[in-house]
C-alpha cells in the first residue's frame, strides 16, 4: 500500500519537474533564438489599434512591417499610411450596358491587391444574370465559363465592396478593427482583426473575404507598393475586402483603381463625388443609375448605371 503511494508520488513529482523544465525551455525558445524574428512577433502582438498609434509608434510599426515583408518576399516592399485627401469622397460607377463579364477586373484586382492565390480569394465577383429577369439574384450565376462572353440573353454584374455610407459591417465588429475613413473607404486593420467574421455575416453584398488558410502569394507576383489599410500581405485568420485601391487612389495625382484601368470595355468609372466636374457626378446626374439593394439603406457609393 505504502509502496504504491510512494510510487504515485514519485511519478507526480517527476512529471512536475518535467513540466517546469518544459515551460522554461519553451519560454527560452521564444525569447532566445532568432531574437529579431521573435521580437517582430512580440511587437505585433502588443501593437495598438491603428488609430491609436502615435506618430512615432506608427513609424516603428511601418518599419517593422516593411522589414518583415521585404524579407518574406525578397524584394523592397513599402507600406504606406497615406491619409484621406481633404474634400474627397470616392464614388464608383459601373456601366451595366457595357460590361461583358470577361473577369479581367477580377484578376487585375488580385494582382494589384495581393490576394491569396491558394486558398483563392477574389474581391470581385461577376454575376451572370438573365436579361429577361433583370437584377434578380435568384437567377445569378458566377461560375459561368463559356468559350466567349457576352452570352446571348445575359448581362453581367460585377459585385465588390460597395463602400457603404452606412456600412453594416463596421457596426458589428466587436473590436472596431474595421471602420469607414473620411474619404468613404471602409478599411480593415489586419493586425487588430480577431477573425470572428461577424462583418462577413453583416455584409449584404458578400464583399468581405476570410483568410481560412495561410495566404499563398508568390514573391514574383507580389505587388510591393502597399498601404497599411489596403493591399499589404495579410496573415491567416483575418478578413479582407476591396478598398478602391487605396494605395493608388489616395495619391496626388492618384491612379484609377486597377479594375477600372484594366476594363476592356471602359465600363468602370471612378471619381470624387464632391467634385461637380467629376465623371461620377456627370453619370449620376445624367444616366439611369441604381444602387444595389437600396432597400437595406446601406447607402452604397457604388453606382450601377446604364449609359445607353
Amino acid at each position: 500500500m505504502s509502496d504504491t503511494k510512494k510510487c504515485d508520488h514519485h511519478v507526480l513529482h517527476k512529471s512536475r519537474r518535467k513540466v517546469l523544465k518544459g515551460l522554461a525551455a519553451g519560454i527560452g525558445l521564444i525569447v532566445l533564438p532568432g531574437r529579431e524574428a521573435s521580437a517582430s512577433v512580440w511587437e505585433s502582438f502588443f501593437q495598438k489599434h491603428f488609430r491609436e498609434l502615435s506618430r512615432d509608434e506608427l513609424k516603428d510599426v511601418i518599419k517593422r512591417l516593411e522589414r518583415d515583408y521585404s524579407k518574406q518576399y525578397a524584394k523592397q516592399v513599402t507600406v504606406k499610411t497615406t491619409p484621406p485627401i481633404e474634400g474627397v469622397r470616392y464614388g464608383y460607377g459601373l456601366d451595366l450596358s457595357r460590361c461583358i463579364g470577361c473577369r479581367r477586373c477580377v484578376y487585375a484586382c488580385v494582382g494589384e491587391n495581393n490576394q491569396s492565390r491558394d486558398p483563392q480569394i477574389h474581391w470581385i465577383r461577376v454575376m451572370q444574370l438573365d436579361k429577361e429577369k433583370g437584377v434578380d439574384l435568384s437567377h445569378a450565376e458566377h461560375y459561368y465559363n463559356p468559350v466567349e462572353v457576352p452570352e446571348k440573353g445575359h448581362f453581367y454584374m460585377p459585385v465588390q465592396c460597395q463602400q457603404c455610407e452606412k456600412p453594416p459591417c463596421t457596426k458589428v465588429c466587436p473590436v472596431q478593427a474595421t471602420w469607414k475613413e473620411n474619404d468613404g473607404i471602409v478599411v480593415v486593420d489586419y493586425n487588430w482583426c480577431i477573425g470572428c467574421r461577424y462583418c462577413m455575416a453583416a455584409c449584404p453584398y458578400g464583399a468581405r473575404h476570410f483568410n481560412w488558410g495561410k495566404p499563398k502569394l508568390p514573391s514574383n507576383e507580389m505587388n510591393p507598393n502597399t498601404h497599411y489599410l489596403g493591399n499589404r500581405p495579410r496573415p491567416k485568420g483575418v478578413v479582407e475586402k476591396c478598398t478602391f485601391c487605396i494605395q493608388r487612389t489616395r495619391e496626388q495625382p492618384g491612379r484609377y483603381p486597377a479594375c477600372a484601368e484594366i476594363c476592356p470595355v471602359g465600363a468602370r468609372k471612378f471619381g470624387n463625388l464632391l467634385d461637380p466636374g467629376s465623371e461620377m457626378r456627370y453619370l449620376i446626374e445624367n444616366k439611369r443609375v441604381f444602387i444595389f439593394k437600396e432597400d437595406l439603406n446601406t447607402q452604397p457609393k457604388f453606382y450601377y448605371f446604364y449609359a445607353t
Partner: protein
Amino acid sequence: MKTRKYAHKILIPGACVLVQLLFVPESYSSRVKEFDRSGQLVVTEKTAAELQPTYNIKNRQSEKIFPVPRPPFSEGIFPCSQCHAGMKPNPQRRVLKDYHEDIVLHHAEGQRWCTDCHNLLNRDKLRLVSGELIDFEESYRLCGQCHGDKFRDWKVGIHGKRTGYWNGDKQYLLCVHCHNPHDPKFKPIKPLPPPQRPGAARH
C-alpha cells in the same frame, strides 16, 4: 445742317448693302474668284465636294484637343499616300480586289463608302461632312458626327475607357482603339477562369 439732313440717304442703303453682303449665300459655281496677296484676281476651278456649304469654321467653338495614343493602324499602312500618291483617285463604289480586300464594311454599308470618311484627294486625312479635313488622331470628331450622344459621353469620360489619374492627367482612347471603324460592334472575348467552388481545393 445740310450734311446731317442727307446723312440717312447714304447710311440706309449702305447698311442694306452690308446686310446683303453678310447674309446672301455664295452662289454654287465651280469657279471661285479670290484675291491673292498681291491683290490679283485669281479664278480657280473647284470640285463640287470642295464647294459644299460649310458652317463658318472661324466662328465654331474650337474643339478641345484630347490626348490620345497613336491610332491603331495596321502595320506599314500609314501614311496612305505612300501608295495612293501615284494613283488616280477612283470614287466609284466597287468590290476592292487589289488591296484592302481584308476590309469588310459592316457599318451602315448601304449608305456609306470609303470616301465618305477618307478624303479622296489627300488620303492621309479624314474628311468631315463639312468638308474639313482632319488627322486620324482627331477621328473622334468624325465618329461624333453621327454618334453625337456617345461623343458627348466620351468627352466627359463616361463612354469608353479612360486611364491615367482620377485627379490628374487622363489618357483617352480613340473610338477606333476599341471599335473597328469598318465593323464597329465589340467582338466577344474569352473570359478569364471562374472562381473555385468552395471545397474544390480541399482534398
